[in-house]
């Protein structure tokens, strides 16, 4: 039994050593500087060699690759390693991770509502002054408002998208002699004409299926109609719950959208009846526009990425889009859209310098140059937009006459904006009346 006397201290020391080495984790590595690139533009962000910033967002696939590309030089000039992770489950997972203490350093929120929930729960750090100043310089006050929670500024906007484009095939329109409608009434007239003219073509195709988020494309329809028919004031009141969700104006907007979505003569080209909207994936829903079984498809600018490879998206190409036309022209040229907000769970120097970069005009130009996205950053040079559609989108965003409002469901509390509103749309398409749907969403609005 004598040898145990030696073994015990050895084992104890071993445990201690292993524990220590496990705690120290990753050291060194990373930070390989990429040669002769000019770093003068990045001097203000400082040097943070060997530091890592983890980023979590909804952005995946090509978009994610482009995003990482757009901060490559920032990484090599500042020495910060950006660990990027994109997930389509972001909306649910970010809450889980924040609660379990494994939050990322930086999260790119697609919804101000979610950002507000996280900020109120005390997980987020307020944005540093440098970021706040950059946002004052580069964005309109509307945009800054969306990153502010209870008077405290948390998150700078990053990229932007414009919703409510109506996609169509220019060739079909030209062959049939149809004009792009200038008003909502003209659009309805045109739809009726298409429904009467052509047995093989329905005027509209739509798809609201999106896993557990099924129904969200329908919320875009309602928002577009509320903003265009009743104006930005009513829209703001609706989103902030200063008027109830079952206000007659909102119910009326459901009915207006229903003139198209709930009318079997109008939908659902290429897929079937009204209810097939619910079982059609949103990314596939526009395809019938190309094969001529559907004339128009309502979807945001990111629909451009959903067309099959090789589709020419241009005014004289295979598909093109017009913005959903005004319903009441006295309410101005209104568009709804979305954008990402960059919030931070840590306030270390390297995180703050990364936040400042994302809020800068440099980042906007670098990212937009790679194509596929636009930004509402005023420092963005429209010539950097890569496609015709991106140019059109930047034009709309930078037009002084445009009334821009953030996607309403993204601003509502998550109990509504990412739950009961989606479910309400599903029930509405599945046959429940506009009034009943609005009542049930109203009853789900959090009381406090």
């Amino acid at each position, binding site marked *: 039994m004598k040898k145990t006397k030696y073994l*015990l201290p050895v084992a104890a020391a071993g445990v201690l050593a292993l524990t220590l080495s496990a705690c120290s984790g990753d050291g060194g*590595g990373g930070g390989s500087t990429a040669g002769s690139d000019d770093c003068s533009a990045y001097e203000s962000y400082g040097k943070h060699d060997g530091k890592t910033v983890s980023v979590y967002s909804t952005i995946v696939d090509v978009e994610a690759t482009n995003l990482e590309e757009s901060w490559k030089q920032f990484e090599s000039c500042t020495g910060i390693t950006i660990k990027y992770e994109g997930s389509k489950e972001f909306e649910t997972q970010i809450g889980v991770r924040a609660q379990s203490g494994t939050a990322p350093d930086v999260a790119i929120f697609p919804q101000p509502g979610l950002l507000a929930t996280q900020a109120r729960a005390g997980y987020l750090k307020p944005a540093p002054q440098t970021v706040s100043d950059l946002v004052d310089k580069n964005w309109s006050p509307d945009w800054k408002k969306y990153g502010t929670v209870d008077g405290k500024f948390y998150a700078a906007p990053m990229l932007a998208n414009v919703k409510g484009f109506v996609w169509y095939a220019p060739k079909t329109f030209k062959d049939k002699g149809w004009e792009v409608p200038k008003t909502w009434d003209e659009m309805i007239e045109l739809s009726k004409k298409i429904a009467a003219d052509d047995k093989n073509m329905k005027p509209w195709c739509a798809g609201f299926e999106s896993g*557990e988020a099924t129904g969200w494309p329908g919320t875009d329809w309602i928002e577009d109609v509320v903003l265009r028919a009743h104006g930005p004031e009513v829209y703001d009141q609706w989103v902030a719950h200063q008027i109830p969700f079952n206000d007659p104006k909102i119910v009326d907007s459901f009915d207006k959208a229903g003139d198209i979505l709930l009318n079997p003569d109008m939908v659902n080209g290429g897929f*079937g009846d009204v209810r*097939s909207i619910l079982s059609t994936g949103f990314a596939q829903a526009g395809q019938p526009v190309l094969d001529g079984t559907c004339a128009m498809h309502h979807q945001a600018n990111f629909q451009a990425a959903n067309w099959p490879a090789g589709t020419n998206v241009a005014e004289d190409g295979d598909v093109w889009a017009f913005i959903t036309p005004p319903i009441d022209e006295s309410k101005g040229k209104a568009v709804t859209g979305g954008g990402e907000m960059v919030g931070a769970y840590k306030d270390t120097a390297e995180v703050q310098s990364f936040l400042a970069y994302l809020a800068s005009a440099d980042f906007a130009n670098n990212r937009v140059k790679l194509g596929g996205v636009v930004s509402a950053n005023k420092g963005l040079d429209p010539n950097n937009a890569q496609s015709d559609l991106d140019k059109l989108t930047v034009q709309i965003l930078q037009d002084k006459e445009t009334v821009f409002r953030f996607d309403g469901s993204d601003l509502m509390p*998550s*109990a509504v904006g990412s739950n009961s509103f989606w479910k309400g749309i599903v029930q509405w398409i599945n046959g429940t009346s506009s009034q009943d749907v609005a009542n049930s969403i109203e009853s789900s609005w959090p009381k406090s």
Partner: protein
Amino acid sequence: MEFIGEKLLQVVIALAIFAAVIGLIMLLVDRAPKSVKDKVTVAGFLAPAAILMLVGLVYPAIRTSMLAFTDASGNGNGFDNFVWMFTQPEALTTLRNTVIWTVLVPLLSTSFGLAYAVFIDKARGERVLKSLVFMPMAISFVGAGIIWKLVYDYRGPNIEQTGVINFFRVALGMDPKQFLLDAPENTIFLIIVMVWIQTGFAMVILSAAIKGVPVELIEAARLDGANAWQQFRNVTVPGIRGALVVVLTTITIATLKVFDIVRTMTAGNYDTSVVANEMYTQAFRAGEPGRGAALALILFLMVLPIVVYNARVLRKQREIH
């Protein structure tokens, strides 16, 4: 690559720490004074498991129970969450569906599994037949959900069908059907998926149990003039009673917690939500952790009696043997 290497290193370190801790405990226990050695041994070996149980199970359970009595911002609100659960039509549908699931799935899976096990017992090609039915067990619930979603897929009457069932319906001159949109039968179509998975489990366990019924008993019954049904009813079933209880309770517990199939196929829409799905939706999507916790608590209370019953039956059997 760097990322994978780092993770592997972490795994190795974790395993090494585990081995070292166990080794240390063994050494310490070994060196304890003779007078208290037994107690120290017991304590030393139980402590790690007990601590992990406390940290990983007991503490979260208590936290969840407390959370169930708070609102979205974390302030106490008494029984409001439970009032909501038993008054909101939506929440009531959820509870109703869970009851339908828990009644139908164990019953159907066990009956099909038992029937199949009896019929293929000692048949030619038994192994192949068994693995065919057992195979769905190897597919994850999410995978099964996606497969069946495609099976139920719908296109309009004049458009080429992509779903298998609707393809055959149209070929037979019927209209295609939206299987997942119409309550209440859509819940049944979801239940079919779960039964499809669990039948294999029931079949394998019951088949093994059937083989354990003494041949002499069956021969004696046959000599007494019992027909096949009587043999099955009065000899086989009592002989496999223990296995039947285990299968029924295991499937019941799995069914109470069903989440993946519903979330993948309908996301709880069209009145198909179940408690586990609603719990997740409320807690993590709607930002109502209190309601989520209340649903979790109810789920726990529903599972508890079954677990207790299961443990009792097992103990009784051990006493007999």
